[in-house]
């Protein structure tokens, strides 16, 4: 009570009401309650509208069971390193899920390797005319529509795309390489989409690093790679983890790029969710799959933060 009165005393009544209403609406109506509604729906049967709220509308684990073991009578069995078990498994959905997570990891790693040198270069050199131009060039592709970026990659990597035309012109290959089927176009497009989200946190972290530390390490005879390993990277760790977290979450949750650039035989986990909602018309199961994706992402990110000893407050800076 004391705190509430203090709050209104500090802000005045009008502003105080605005702050409380605004934050309350955002946190409860926009963030928490919708997530809870989705969680609730994921534990229900897929019923026609007339039966919702009736006798059959009871809680069930069916949707999660389907994700793990598939439909009843599913002939596929789990095998661990060739050792066959008796446990049924939903091979299609599980393999797509695992593949999505692994691919998102690879995209994150690729972006980190690609962006770290530039972030270091920009962060340590004084930002003059060149630096400003670089930053401008970095921002422009980011504000181009997600769909159009994927579209650009489809043009570049297509059968009659520039890369194939060039490869055939120099005679490396005589048939067009199917980059789309091999998912190369997808990984390139995903990595491309999140470059900026990787580069800026790292750049911000490195920018505040005192150059004297690097000089000191050099004077003491440290080779360049050890300077990075022992001085720059530990200092930039929050920025690196922040960038990696965002890139990982966004690529695991990407939908547009896999829809446009994905090969015909390979799916992204978000596409399966999308199918349950649209063509499948099974919102309950789609919700369950969305919960699986959300929980997996949160667990992985929290584990990484624990591993690298970075706090949540350092994300998004």
């Amino acid at each position, binding site marked *: 009570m004391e705190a509430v009165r203090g709050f209104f005393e500090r802000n005045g009544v009008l502003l105080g009401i605005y702050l409380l209403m605004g934050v309350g609406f955002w946190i409860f109506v926009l963030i928490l309650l919708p997530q809870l509604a989705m969680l609730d729906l994921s534990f229900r049967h897929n019923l026609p509208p007339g039966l919702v709220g009736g006798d059959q509308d009871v809680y069930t684990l069916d949707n999660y069971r389907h994700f793990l073991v598939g439909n009843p009578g599913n002939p596929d069995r789990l095998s661990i390193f060739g050792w066959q078990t008796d446990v049924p498994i939903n091979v299609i959905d599980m393999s797509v899920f695992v593949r999505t997570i692994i691919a998102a990891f690879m995209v994150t790693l690729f972006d980190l390797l690609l962006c770290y040198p530039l972030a270091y270069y920009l962060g340590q050199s004084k930002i003059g005319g060149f630096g400003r131009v670089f930053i401008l060039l970095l921002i422009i592709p980011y504000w181009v529509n997600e769909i159009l970026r994927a579209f650009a990659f489809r043009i570049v990597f297509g059968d009659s795309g520039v890369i194939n035309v060039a490869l055939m012109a120099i005679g490396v290959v005589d048939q067009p390489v199917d980059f789309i089927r091999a998912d190369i176009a997808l990984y390139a497009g995903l990595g491309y989409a999140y470059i900026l989200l990787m580069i800026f946190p790292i750049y911000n972290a490195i920018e505040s690093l005192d150059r004297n530390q690097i000089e000191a390490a050099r004077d003491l005879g440290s080779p360049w790679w050890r300077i990075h390993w022992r001085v720059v990277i530990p200092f930039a760790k929050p920025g690196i983890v922040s960038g990696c977290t965002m890139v990982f979450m966004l690529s695991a949750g990407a939908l547009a790029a896999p*829809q446009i650039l994905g090969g015909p035989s390979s799916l992204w986990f*978000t596409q399966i969710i999308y199918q349950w909602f649209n063509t499948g018309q099974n919102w309950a199961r789609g919700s369950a799959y969305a919960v699986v994706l959300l929980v997996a992402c949160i667990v992985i990110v929290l584990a990484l933060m624990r591993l690298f000893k970075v706090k949540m407050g350092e994300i998004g800076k």
Partner: protein
Amino acid sequence: MSRILPKTLLGLYLLIFFGYLLSPLVIMGITAFNSSAFPRAAPWQCFTFEWFDVLAGDTRITDSIVNSFIVGGFTVVISVALGLAGALVLTQIWPRLRASYYTVVIAPILIPGVVLGISTLVFWGRINTLMGLPDDGFLRNGIFLTVLGQSTFIAAYCMLVFIARLQRFDSGLTEAALDLGATHTQAFRKILLPFLKPAFGSAAVIAFLASFENYNTTTFTFGTYPTLTIELAQKVRYGINPSISALAVIIVGLTVLGALLNEAYKRRAALKGNLKVKDVASTPKLPSFLARNPASLALIVLALGFVGTVVYAQQYSPAQCKAHVQEQKRLEAEERRQEMLQQLEERRRKAAEAAGEQQPASTAPADSENPNTGAFGDVFNPGNLDATEEAPAEPESNANPNTGAFGGVFNPGNLSGEEGETAEPEAAPAPGGFGDVFEPQNLESGESEQQ
């Protein structure tokens, strides 16, 4: 030596990096001006502006742009208001609660967009049912759902912008105002709001851009009001044509324009601060704001280039070039046809010789002559090829040469006339046998009409 190598490596790295970053956009831009019906930069056919006309005539695109602006406007208002509240509360909340609070409000940035879209859709559907509203009620409206779904995470972007600005705020100013007798509302309006003014601008711009390009959340919530991004995704997924590249050219152009304007404005503001007489005197020819401001210079060049292009586009007509390309294709097809005929002739002669050795009395060679030409004759008719090139609107026309090619070959009459002639089945899949049917362009252009 030890100095040159790192420099070269750095240059190479920068080249690769920015090549990866910019070349897809440049290539996409080029395809907007190529007359080929499938967006490609090579082989180059004709320089054309027709895809911009196609784009302007596409009502689905123009309608969706209106939807995007409506959604964007509402989202900006809600997100900026919520983001500001979120940032102000963060500065006042108990230290013990701060970490949890920050985690909750920053989470929407990290939560996959599809999850936000689904949860919004499910939640408001549930509310709708609870309140007993009709199925097409206000709470199920696409624009309403999209605005709320997008605001969930865009408000967090805005909050980050405000937090960054608030960190530089000296709270002593507010205290001074209060000491001098201002009310809380007055202090907020006269001290804090003016200080936050630049942040309002950037938060609004970021919110609008984020809303405009959002796909993952909107794809679940848009209902009957597709935004531009949704409409684009539909087009790209079910067949592509260069009018999308034309749209990309416009969007990239606007982005570059906005970035340059911003840069020029910043430079000018910076120059105003430390402009000295000496600097002005040393550049007598150019106005000083140009000489010191490459961004404005680039802006002017861009504007001139744009005006020039528009004027040029009014007069330019690629008709002649297109006719030329058409003619070229016809000639090529003709050449291929001749080649095929020769090959067939040769095979037939060989087969006939072989057959002749086995069955001296057979009249196969004479009979086989005619059905063969008949079988392929239709395919090689230049008119056929032209039809497939010219009329991408009719997928059936693609199929026709196909049936023609096979239909003739598998005609029983053919076979009976060619006993023992093994060459014939091989002839069908030979290169060029199907003309341009398998050219990706044909398939794609047919595909683009299926949506």
